[in-house]
């Protein structure tokens, strides 16, 4: 249930709107607030204004990092308003809790705001019609809207929206039932392709990212961080650094008090009059570190520990039938262990922030996925109220989850306070790779007992990974949290009578965070690889076998589990195996599965996975050369994401996911020695380049009227598993450890 209200153009939106503008605000009421909606203070998270000039201003409260929010969300408003897209301007919101959550992650911006944005548009349209009817002294029922215009049907008179804005702004907001939404068939923009709002600015170099933010009088800072998490400066000799031309001074930054959360890592900042001088000065620092409690962390040894834990009983997350009894009866079982290393986000734009602390206030310009998290950490670090932290959000040069974590912004604020002037903190690529909030390293143990036909009669799966909550509670958080266990693990969709899902403990030695697709990466890899292994062992066709595992059409009953369903209502977004089956069958048709057989170094692999409420099935074709090089001639992927707002941008997300998945599967690996991360730049943390990606990626969107679901993340997990399954089909080499690149395939 949502609410739309008319609001003052003044207030916290400042000077966005002019006098005479009709300003509407809409609020998504969260599920838990629904029952008591009357007592909830009206806090809109969506703002829409119609200016007397006819300009329509939509406030984007979520961040643009390439997923198209600044285009798709305004499309929803403009459609119901019957606005001319050319007249739509998008203003980026500052961080303010009054918008509700602004955390742009978890692939939920469209699904969460799909209704309220349309309702805001519909309300505005009704008010403009009423204003016109009053002006003409006719019944509103005789009027309708055409593009950006109200038309009086009988007389053919017309008034442009801008001419009506001032009058409409004095009218009451219609009740929801008096502002009906358009029929789907009348949609003007939704479901149709629309260019990225910022396209022209990007193609001319005018688009402003965090890296491009500038305040007069600012200095530049580069921070030498402790190489090991929790390390401290023992001594620092900055004499040589200070000799570098352009370097002003060095400033120590205090180490964080555990847990790390979003606090600065500590270290020594070099302050200079340009970025390059700061980087150069930093290289001349002579620091002796006290490495602290994680000094012995070694990722090779840690891998063995995780695998060993995965072989032992863990917490039971889901239990169907009696797995132990079924295994005992079967006598023989098939086991397999899978492993996925730590992964870094590596957005093209390294972390960067400008902060200006003055008169008890901080003004920040940064590329962040979550300006309210910026407000929270800066407020805590500087001991000032959150509302005194003004966080402007620039475009983001990629995010992938990294820019939800504002440690780099906190650094800028701390330094600006110490210096008494504005500071721009620029992270190098090395900082970005070494000081990430990594996607968790994970070990998965899989066990199945199968019938004569190879069908599983018992299935046990156990994952072990240092959980994301360890970043916020380094003492107690060792087991997976419900939300991330719910990413392709608790919700394993297979129709097996005896099925148990477990999770074991792991302590973290680096900061763990969410990265595009998150736990679905390792869970999806294990589940969909093991299914493929069982198919081959049984001599069955992997597609046919996968469909048999998905089984009869049903909604998974997860009532007895902690399943969180990505924060969405299970009634609205159940795990529906019919949809998973359908995308699997469709991708088989599209890729003409079975027409060409695997073998002779060519292989086809398939996988199907639901994540972020979206169903995806992918078929990958690989060719493996005599030297063991893997080429990917073709990928087909079928997506059921419910209602699609912008098909072109959606397809782009899934094409991009295949590229992201290629990087993860082939070369994605962060390792550590003596607590310090070994990788540093694109030479030793390679990501896919134009000559390495699939030569052809076909994305098919299922035509659906179901509620909209996520599109930014769900493409990655099934690609990775299908790719590895294809390698097996081509070579007979089973990939159980990622990345593939390190392994001998032929």
């Amino acid at each position, binding site marked *: 249930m949502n609410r739309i209200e008319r609001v003052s153009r003044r207030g916290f939106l400042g000077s966005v709107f002019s006098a005479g503008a009709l300003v509407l605000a809409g609020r998504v009421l969260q599920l838990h607030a629904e029952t008591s909606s009357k007592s909830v203070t009206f806090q809109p998270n969506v703002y829409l204004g119609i200016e007397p000039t006819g300009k329509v201003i939509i406030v984007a409260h979520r961040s643009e990092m390439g997923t198209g929010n600044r285009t798709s969300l305004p499309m929803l408003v403009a459609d119901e308003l019957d606005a001319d897209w050319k007249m739509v301007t998008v203003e980026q919101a500052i961080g303010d809790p009054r918008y509700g959550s602004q955390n742009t992650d978890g692939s939920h911006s469209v699904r969460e705001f799909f209704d309220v944005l349309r309702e805001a548009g519909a309300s505005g349209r009704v008010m403009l019609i009423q204003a016109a009817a009053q002006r003409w002294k006719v019944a509103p029922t005789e009027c309708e809207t055409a593009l950006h215009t109200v038309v009086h049907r009988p007389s053919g008179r017309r008034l442009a929206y801008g001419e009506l804005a001032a009058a409409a702004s004095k009218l009451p907001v219609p009740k929801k039932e008096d502002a009906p939404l358009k029929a789907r068939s009348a949609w003007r923009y939704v479901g149709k392709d629309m260019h*990225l709002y910022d396209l022209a600015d990007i193609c001319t170099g005018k688009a402003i990212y965090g890296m491009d933010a500038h305040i007069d009088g600012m200095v530049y800072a580069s921070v030498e961080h402790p190489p090991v998490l929790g390390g401290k400066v023992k001594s620092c000799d900055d004499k040589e650094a200070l000799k570098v031309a352009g370097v002003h001074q060095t400033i120590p930054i205090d180490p964080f008090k555990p847990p790390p959360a979003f606090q600065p890592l500590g270290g020594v900042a070099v302050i200079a009059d340009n970025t390059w001088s700061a980087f150069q000065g930093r290289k001349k620092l002579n620091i002796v570190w006290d490495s602290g409690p994680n000094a012995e962390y070694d990722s090779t040894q840690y891998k063995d520990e995780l695998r060993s834990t995965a072989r032992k009983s863990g917490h039971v997350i889901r239990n169907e039938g009696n797995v132990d009894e079924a295994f005992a009866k079967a006598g023989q079982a098939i086991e397999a262990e899978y492993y996925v290393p730590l992964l870094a986000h590596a957005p093209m*734009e390294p972390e960067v922030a400008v902060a200006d602390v003055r008169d008890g206030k901080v003004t920040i310009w940064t590329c962040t996925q979550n300006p309210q998290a910026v407000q929270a950490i800066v407020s805590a670090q500087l001991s000032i109220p959150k509302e005194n932290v003004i966080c402007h959000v620039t475009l983001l040069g990629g995010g992938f989850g990294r820019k939800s974590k504002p440690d780099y912004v906190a650094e800028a604020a701390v330094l600006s306070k110490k210096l008494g002037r504005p500071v721009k903190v620029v992270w190098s*690529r090395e900082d970005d790779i070494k000081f990430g909030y990594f996607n968790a390293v994970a070990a998965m143990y899989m066990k199945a007992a199968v019938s004569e036909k190879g069908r599983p009669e018992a299935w046990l799966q156990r994952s072990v990974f240092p959980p994301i909550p360890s970043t916020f509670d380094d003492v107690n958080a060792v087991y997976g949290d419900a939300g991330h266990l719910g990413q392709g693990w608790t919700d394993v969709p297979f129709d097996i009578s005896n099925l148990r899902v477990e999770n074991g403990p792991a302590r973290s030695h680096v900061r763990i965070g969410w990265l595009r697709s998150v736990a679905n990466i390792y869970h999806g890899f294990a589940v969909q690889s093991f299914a493929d292994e069982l198919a081959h062992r049984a001599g069955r066709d992997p597609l046919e076998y996968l469909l048999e595992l998905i089984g009869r059409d049903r909604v998974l009953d997860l009532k007895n589990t902690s399943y969180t369903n990505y924060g969405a209502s299970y009634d609205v977004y159940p795990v529906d195996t019919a949809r998973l089956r359908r995308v699997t069958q469709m991708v088989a048709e599209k890729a003409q599965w079975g027409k060409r057989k695997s073998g002779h170094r060519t292989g086809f692999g398939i996988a199907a996975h639901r994540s972020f409420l979206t169903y995806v099935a992918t078929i990958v074709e690989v060719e493996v050369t005599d030297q063991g090089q893997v080429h990917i001639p073709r990928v087909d992927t079928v997506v059921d994401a419910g209602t699609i707002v912008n098909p072109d941008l959606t397809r782009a997300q899934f094409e991009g996911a295949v590229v992201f998945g290629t990087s993860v599967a082939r070369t994605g690996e962060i390792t550590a020695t003596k607590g310090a991360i070994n990788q540093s730049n*694109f030479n030793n943390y390679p990501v896919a380049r134009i000559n390495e990606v699939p030569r052809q990626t076909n994305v098919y969107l299922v035509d659906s009227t179901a509620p909209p679901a996520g599109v930014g993340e769900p493409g990655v997990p099934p690609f990775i598993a299908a790719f590895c399954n294809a390698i097996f089909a081509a070579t007979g080499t089973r990939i159980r450890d990622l990345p593939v690149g390190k392994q001998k395939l032929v």
Partner: protein
Amino acid sequence: MAITFTLNGGRQTVNVNPQTPLLWVLRDTLGLTGTKFGCGMALCGACTVQINGNAVRSCVTQVSSVAGKTVTTIEGLSADLSHPVQRAWMAEDVPQCGYCQSGQIMAAASLLAKTAKPTDADISEALRGNICRCGTYAQIRRAVHRAAEIKAGGGKA
């Protein structure tokens, strides 16, 4: 030290440490932020500009080395999106986050200046130094082919 070069068609003199990479002179000294910082080691191509028409990584190019030469950045390619590569980028809806695209566009423009009708292999060779983490490579490839057609058609397409 004063260093003079031609920048986007105009004469430009800067007084900076001659070892400073061109990237940081463009960005921090001259405020031309269309050219992006991505890796600092010529590994990602985000900082690609043209020097005398050649695609060059400005993050590893000392500013002293461009004295007397002609430097073109994304801002100088065309301010009105009239360059065939920009037009093709718009038509093919290439960008996602857009951060790498200045570099991609400059590398593609340099390729087309030398190779009127590039093959897929030519495109891979010319652009494999430019990383796009969002994964817009398929669109980039299509856009380069389209830009070649636009150019061949005398700017019409």
